[in-house]
């Protein structure tokens, strides 16, 4: 508890994300999420008691849309982030520990992959697939590039760890490579892995919202990015339908700020040298 008081970013991050979680849970109890489908409410209503967030032009109740859509967007981010960090960690650990040809290949692929603008490659993939993606397919598309950054950063960390004395001792005592990775290296990098995970969940959500705003998302799912796509599609801004975009934007802001502060907080745990600053 005393530590939490010093690590304010961690507290802020957790608080923001818990508030969002509460909103979704309470929302699910209060509102019928099937109202997030088109034609379930009168179109373009400003917020009122019946529709606390108003309704959009296709007759979705926006409160129900937010309650149903927030977990969907988080799910895309979480699946893609998990896959990304999972694959990235395996490649990062293996290439940095064993070095050799594997390391050269992984490093080459990652270096090249990172200079290419991710969103554009994702656009290319999404355009070539058939229309009508599901939320899970969307997550997998996003994950196809989400492993590059974790692989790079984890590799760099392992490179410095593998020269430590205790790794040397483990090697001399006859532990196999995979044993050393799992039993010696991983536990030391756990906070770091957690920070990487949060970070890649955040960039996966950003990528998925980007694709959705461009119209390449799951057209009939009420995710946050798709809501923004409809906002843009119907020019809600010029028409003065402010309630249509304030709700999704606020939630997206809370998601990104929450994840950002969580990363900063976790970074502080992973890297004690950061603590004395600020």
């Amino acid at each position: 508890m005393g530590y939490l008081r010093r690590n304010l970013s961690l507290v802020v991050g957790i608080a923001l994300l818990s508030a969002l979680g509460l909103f979704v849970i309470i929302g699910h109890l209060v509102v019928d999420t099937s109202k997030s489908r088109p034609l379930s409410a009168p179109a373009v209503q400003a917020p009122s008691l019946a529709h606390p967030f108003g309704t959009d032009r296709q007759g979705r109740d926006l409160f129900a849309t937010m309650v149903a859509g927030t977990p969907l967007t988080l799910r895309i981010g979480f699946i893609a982030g998990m896959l990304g960090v999972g694959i990235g960690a395996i490649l990062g650990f293996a290439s940095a520990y064993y070095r050799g040809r594997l390391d050269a290949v992984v490093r080459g692929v990652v270096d090249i992959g990172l200079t290419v603008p991710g969103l554009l490659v994702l656009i290319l993939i999404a355009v070539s697939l058939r229309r009508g993606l599901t939320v899970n397919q969307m997550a997998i598309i996003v994950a196809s590039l989400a492993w590059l950054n974790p692989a790079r950063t984890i590799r760099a960390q392992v490179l410095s760890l593998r020269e430590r004395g205790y790794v040397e001792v483990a090697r001399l005592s006859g532990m196999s490579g995979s044993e050393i990775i799992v039993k010696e290296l991983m536990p030391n990098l756990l906070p770091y892995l957690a920070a990487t995970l949060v970070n890649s969940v955040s960039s996966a959500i950003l990528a998925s919202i980007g694709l959705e705003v461009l119209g390449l998302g799951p057209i009939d799912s009420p995710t946050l990015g798709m809501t923004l796509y409809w906002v843009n599609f119907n020019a809600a801004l010029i028409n003065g339908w402010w309630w249509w975009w304030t709700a999704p934007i606020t939630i997206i802001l809370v998601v990104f700020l929450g994840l950002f502060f969580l990363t900063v907080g976790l970074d502080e745990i992973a890297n004690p040298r950061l603590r004395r600053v600020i």
Partner: protein
Amino acid sequence: MRADYLLKRLGVFVLIVWLAATLNFFLTRLSGQDPVRATLLQQAQLGGYVQSGLEAMVKEYERRFGLDRPLWVQYVTYLSDVSRFNFNYSISNYPRTVNEIIAEAIPWTIGLLGTTTVLSFTIGTLLGALLAWPGAPRWMRVLMPPLWALHAIPFFLLGLILMYVFAFRIQLLPMFGGYSPGAFPALTLTFVGDVIAHAILPALSIVLVATGGWALGMRGMMVTTQGEDYVLFAEAKGLRRSTIFLWYCVRNAILPQTTALALALGNILSGAVLVEVIFGYPGVGTILFHAIRENDHFLVQGIVFTIIVALGVTTLILDVVYPLLDPRISYRRT
């Protein structure tokens, strides 16, 4: 060893270009979509009746686009076309070529992206350096939390908010496009002013977010540099504080920032594409958005390829310039 490094770096660049082209070619072919048939059917539906000669038309267009030849012939032709930046005709704007459309949009994107990147990098780096400097004025500390928070927001979200506040509510600045509708592009003072007024909001939404990122990175670097022995030595020698700040701390901390710039360009560009879409800015992002909507595969491919090559060239230049900035790096083999 410089020539050695240069050759290797050029090789990587060629590899990136080849990979981008190959990905472009096979992804669309693997999907099993038939853009020609789809477009013709769509047009037939718009016309309200299905033409009897549709199959023949599909055949004819496929011959003209070269889609009836074996796959490897198509691939080789594609590579040779692409190496000459020839991306064929746009499907949705038929008589116009993909090249013409991209060439029209590129100056807008380069203008917007170039200005905002230079601005945010310079301001952010300076700000970050000052934020870590103990001699900086007190009020600067206040800037930290908002910079942090802004840094976590996607460009286009801030763009939406700015657009609502400054273009819709106060109507201070124009909302959409690159210049006023009806204005005739010419090198007159009014037109240039018009273009600048239209660029302010999109640029601001990129600069405000990106500056925070550079400031945070620079601040971290400065904190490390200030702990170095040579800074202590400089202080002990009694050098002026401004000299230590500029030539001992900033000079050394700025180098990793430059590498970070090369790595961040891709992300900045991805974000800027969405900003352009939101503001209807006539750059590459907006035509990409329309190309996606109209299922214009050739145009999408052309844009993606052009951007990847442009970024590849930029990072190549940055990588080659880097050792000139930092004499410690000579790219000798270790």
